[in-house]
């Protein structure tokens, strides 16, 4: 039940949306903030507030994994166990927690202090192993740090080891390797840059909206973005200006922009840095896009786990409103815009644009069938653009420096501009690196990633987040742009690159990723819902040494029966780890079957910063 204090926030929450049900996740999140979990009474209360029945609130609450439907300990330890974290020791972290607290995943300490859960990717792959404790992230954990965290939490309820605002690697590393002019990470490289409005303005921020608002025709702005060749940075790489151009001009409105800040693709942690370190850059991009498409309301759909990111965005919004960059009649241009931060609650699928819309409408995050496309019928059935954080952050610079400038960077004409690549895995210097598209994978690994860690040999690369097919060392000379990676048989995706060394079991890696996909499948389409479970069971069996030769054909056949058979691209994504490891590393599967066990099991655990190399 909501406290009197919480009740005061409710009218303000409801005011943000044209339909009440949209306040579903904000209210569920609020209920959980209040009590640590979402009780039946809370769901009943929310149902009343939203003119729904309790079952309709319940079905939403059970979809999002951050929402606890049972009481939990005072501190909720959530350890990411996805592949990228597992590569550098998340399983060891779980053992440390067991040693310190005597609890395994799903358990709570007897004193009710700590509950341990394993979760899927928290967008902290370059700073793994990590855990989230209530609102805070703790990254690059060692046994010692873990001990310290628990002691501090026990005694003071707080711990100064909490990380963020997020930025990795540290600036001194970054400065050393600045071979290109950065665009998006440039401001935050400046000493003392805090991401505040003042700092952003000092760095030349909010000039683009002065150039555009009321002075340029919206269509002209769309043309500039089209000319720049900017393609979406979320994963699909759709030309941004073209997407904006799909919004019907004669529509009476309202029209919407949804900023997709649901960064959840395992391996990816760039948007988190862009939002936490330089939020105004994103906001300016949002204002420009809204102006171009005629939207007067925009929602930033940010994944629920990014609690700090959401707070920093809220702060930036308040500053921008105060400065007259948002609200009514922005800079005297006659253009009005309200922007709201909308937090998710734990569902990877909500990064899929139509699932995001469903979620924002207060429903279970299930992708919609297309057509109709969001540009025609999106949020609340109105024309809607959905753009990724990084995509939008580019817009002010395209306006300020011209489309030709943007086109001159990277692999023109099809992959112009820079990309912020998130590097993770068995490399010396994981982290976010902004480079022009088109440098080679080798340059990325050696010049930025610092090469493979501990002199180990490279075995496999995932070039675009968990949904991208595995590549091998043979692909080190492919270009990091949309076309280059596609030609190599994978995709650039969200720009997340994970490197795996020779000790990594490919069956295990595929299994880990399938665990992620099985966990995150929304369950709408039969092939994906049932297929993810079936595939995972086969991989579990294979890894445990109970695989059979027929399983290999079965795996491929099942993958074929999922591919292209589902409403959204999730189905295609979930099979990529299997089909690509079977393509490049079939012999490892065969070895599992032949030996009746995982050939990598039992090898000495290799400590890499923290934890073992591959989680066995």
């Amino acid at each position, binding site marked *: 039940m909501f406290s009197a204090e919480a009740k005061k926030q409710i009218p303000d929450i409801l005011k943000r949306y044209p339909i009440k049900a949209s306040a579903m996740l904000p209210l569920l999140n609020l209920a959980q903030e209040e009590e640590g979990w979402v009780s039946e009474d809370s769901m009943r209360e929310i149902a009343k507030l939203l003119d729904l029945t309790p*079952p309709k609130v319940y079905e939403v609450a059970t979809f999002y994994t951050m929402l606890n439907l049972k009481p939990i300990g005072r501190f909720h330890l959530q350890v990411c166990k996805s592949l990228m974290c597992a590569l550098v020791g998340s399983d060891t972290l779980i053992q440390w927690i067991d040693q310190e607290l005597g609890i395994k995943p799903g358990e709570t300490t007897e004193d009710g202090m700590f509950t341990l859960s394993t979760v899927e990717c928290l967008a902290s792959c370059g700073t793994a192993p990590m855990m989230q404790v209530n609102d805070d992230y703790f990254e690059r954990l060692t046994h010692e740090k873990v001990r310290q965290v628990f002691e501090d939490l026990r005694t003071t309820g707080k711990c100064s080891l909490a990380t963020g605002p997020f930025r990795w690697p540290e600036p001194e590393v970054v400065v050393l390797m600045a071979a290109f002019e950065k665009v998006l990470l440039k401001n935050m490289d400046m000493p003392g840059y805090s991401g505040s409005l003042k700092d952003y303005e000092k760095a030349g921020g909010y000039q683009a909206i002065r150039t555009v608002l009321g002075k340029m025709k919206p269509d002209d702005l769309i043309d500039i973005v089209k000319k720049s060749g900017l393609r979406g940075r979320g994963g699909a790489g759709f030309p941004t200006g073209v997407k904006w151009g799909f919004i019907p001009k004669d529509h009476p409105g309202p029209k919407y922009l949804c900023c997709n800040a649901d960064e959840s693709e395992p391996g990816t942690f760039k948007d988190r840095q862009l939002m936490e370190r330089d939020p105004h850059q994103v906001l300016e991009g949002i204002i420009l896009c809204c102006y171009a498409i005629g939207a007067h309301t925009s929602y930033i759909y940010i994944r629920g786990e990014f609690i700090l990111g959401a707070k920093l965005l809220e702060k930036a919004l308040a500053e921008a409103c105060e400065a007259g960059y948002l609200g009514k009649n922005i800079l005297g241009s006659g253009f009005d815009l309200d922007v709201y931060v909308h937090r998710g609650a734990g569902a990877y699928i909500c990064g899929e644009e139509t699932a995001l819309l469903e979620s924002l409408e207060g429903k279970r995050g299930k992708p919609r069938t297309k057509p109709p496309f969001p540009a025609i019928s999106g949020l609340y059935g109105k024309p809607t653009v959905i753009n990724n954080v990084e995509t939008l952050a580019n817009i002010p610079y395209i306006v300020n420096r011209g489309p030709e400038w943007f086109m001159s960077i990277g692999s023109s004409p099809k992959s112009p501009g820079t990309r912020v690549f998130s590097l993770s895995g068995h490399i010396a210097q994981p982290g976010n690196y902004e480079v022009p598209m088109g440098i080679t994978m080798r340059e990325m690994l050696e010049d930025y990633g610092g090469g493979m860690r501990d002199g180990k040999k490279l075995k496999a690369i995932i070039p675009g987040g968990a949904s991208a097919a595995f590549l091998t060392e043979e692909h080190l000379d492919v270009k990091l742009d949309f076309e280059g990676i596609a030609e190599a048989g994978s995709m650039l995706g969200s720009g997340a690159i994970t490197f795996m060394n020779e000790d990594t079991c490919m069956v295990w890696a595929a299994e880990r990723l399938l665990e992620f996909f099985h966990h995150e499948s929304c369950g709408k389409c039969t092939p994906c819902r049932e297929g993810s479970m079936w595939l995972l069971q086969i991989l579990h*069996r294979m890894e445990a040494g109970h695989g059979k030769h027929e399983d290999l054909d079965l795996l491929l056949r099942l993958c074929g029966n999922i591919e292209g058979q589902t409403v959204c691209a999730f189905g295609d994504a979930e099979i990529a780890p299997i089909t690509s490891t079977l393509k490049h590393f079939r012999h490892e599967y065969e070895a599992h079957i032949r030996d009746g066990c995982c050939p990598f099991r039992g090898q000495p655990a290799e400590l890499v910063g923290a934890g073992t190399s591959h989680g066995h």
Partner: protein
Amino acid sequence: MGRVKLTIDKREVEVEQGTLVIEAARELGIDIPHFCYHPKLGYDANCRMCHVEIEKSPKLQASCSIPVTDGMVVHTDTERVNESHKSVLEFILANHPLDCPVCDQGGRCDLQDYSHRYTPTVSPFEDVKRVFNKEYFSPVIEKQMNRCVSCTRCVRYCDDVIDAQALASTGRGSASEIKHFGAHELDCEFCGGCVQICPVGAFTNRVSMFDYRPWMLKRTDTTCGYCGDGCQLTFQTRDQQSTANTIIEVQSFHGTGRNNGDLCARGYFGFGFPNHEDRLTHPLIKRDGTHVQVTWEEAMEYAAERLTEIKEQHGPDAVAGLASARLTNEDLYVFQKFMRVSIGTNQLDSSIRYGHVNAATAMVKVQGTARWTITYEDIVQAHTILLLGTNLTETNPIVGLKVKEAVKKGGAQLITIESTVPVIQTISNITNLATLHMQANPLAFGAVIQGMVKAVLDDGLVNADIRTRYPQYVERLTQDTANMSLSDCEQAAGVTGDQIKAAAKAFSEAPKGIVLVGQGVLRAPGALETTLNVLDLLLLTGKLDQEESGLGVLTEENNEQGALEMGVVPEHVPEPGLRLPEMIEAARDGHVKAMYIVGENPIESLPPSVKVRDALNHLDLLICHELFMTETAKCADIVLPACSYTEKDGTFTNSEGVVQKVRRALDPVGESQPDWEILAQLSNFMNVPMEYESVKDIQDEIRHSQAPMRKTPRLDRKVLDAYIEHETSNSEINHRYVVTKPGTKDTRPLILTVGQSLFHSGKMSTFAKGLNAIQSEGALVMHPDDGVKYGVENGSTVKMVSDHGEAVIPVKLNERRPPGTVFFPEHFGTHIGAVLSMTTDPTTGVPYCSSARVSITPVSFEV
């Protein structure tokens, strides 16, 4: 809408633009396999079973979600398509328990049928199947999640069609599961829609669980015998063994009947009464105060002899007849013929006297027909619908669905004048969908209509054509309403003048408008006048004489319209007979010596203060046809066992005026006989020959004896002119526009109304096992604030006192009941009869006994 030509499997078909590929294929007789698609629901395209190849599309497409385009070329039977279908089945079957031998859906399961069509007998799945733990779901609906294909048809039906929002599609991915709310038992309106729409055995009917295999059942299409909506049902009976003459379950198929396959709890779960152990199976004659079993011949001889004797001694008018409006048209026709010809009296009445007569009288007076001038389709297409005292969801649930469809799909405006509060719960409530809800005092619905008529006149909303055609009528009504004010209406009904004005404006400006009037009005004092005022409202706004607009009156019993049209009323003849309340008085004072009652139970229908039992006991002869030993039958000298409608052929006429077939699904229970057959035989015994081979003979006779009636008649202009002439020539101020304010009384602060529950209809439904499992007793429903005020909690017991008596009953708190009012379901009415009294309508003779002013005090039991 244009037409589109396309080719499916090399055959051309032309369909309406916007048609989905799956439907276009259906027109060619091609059944594209599917689970999640259903024509009633918006598509969700989740099962991925209906994939087809569409030329120029590289990927296979879900045919349920693709509208046709001109020149489209579709293939539904290529190798690629078949492989896709097979693969979806393979995925589903991987985790399916394959428990077909013990699944009640077995034999009519889409998954079973498609598996038979596509898959090999061996599955490559060798891992561990997902198992959802079995959980108790509800007394009447069985849930088995291991069989679920996650198509969410049930949830979407519950949300979109029923508007109950009682089912939750919970969890995520392969752990997705249908639930209610947490581990709570299902609490909903139990329409059975989730069971009917489930393509597999995930939801089944628990009332008949494990009782049958579908292919062993005999199907009989018939019409529901509960409310006036007239739903088509299919009774599934088991009749292989003579001992198994029972209805096993009910279905209603999409696309059939006025209900289009939708049902309510009564229709779906109310089938158990015919075989109830208390059924009367043999004729009984009272000897020395006790009923003894006799043969039909003895009973007939005795009845004929006594009736003839009384008729000869005291004249035919010493005999009075009363019939239930639940009988078939054929029964009712023969009943009135028996009374008029075999006995020779016009002293006959039926249960339409309890309210429907009020509406019929008004409609005949103004529009010349007591039939609806609108249809259910018109409701669905309406721009604006005004509901007046309908309590629609509970009383007439299927008409309720038509209104929901009009609002949810058609975007109709809904104006409600009802006594319920719009509160969202897992039982739908039509006022939740209202664009303008006026929450009225249940004793003063009429005041809101008076106010609307005044607002139409005062605010210049009168239809221009009407103003030109009938200026004197408009003038007259303006005078009639001159002395009333909207604040009078506000004081009477608790609805503000602004709301009334807004409603009047919205209704008059709507291009098409429909008013539905329900029992809340028709069974309360002032019903005739209010119905006339509604007709005035329709006339003034130009909607009475307009196609697809007009008045619909809802009936509580299944054949009230039939009873009216078969002439089972004493009026409309040169020498009208006594009406129900007068009959009772005549029995008491000895003018009536014998009564012949068919299926009616006045002792329980009228409050004890009327002392019907004493009156009936004063008769020389009481003959009853009954299914069960009712309180009235107990007084009878002769009790004749009648067939229920499940055991006979005939027709019912629904509220809307549609005559629909009733077909015999069961053999008559015991020695019971159809009412018409009993009456015809008795007539023969009385030497008044009445020969009918079957109901067809009766139907032929009805057809010959009546002028043919249009299914949906139009208003009769001549009658309207006469009405207007009459209204305008009268010099007195019309008392119909005097606002009466329901008095208040400090010592009796609550208004009690008695009416219908969603889960029952009359008393017959209380013999149905399924419905009793949902609701087996009545409780006094009141608002939680009143609970606090009077110190009672959910489930506690109260003493309710009126000026006439008292009753001790349990309480149920519900926010839908407005504070200051309490409600009791009439099916359990004997518990509270003592607090009710009866008044009689001075014009229509309708006995009003469904409301009272009461006070309540908590009762504490000494342990």
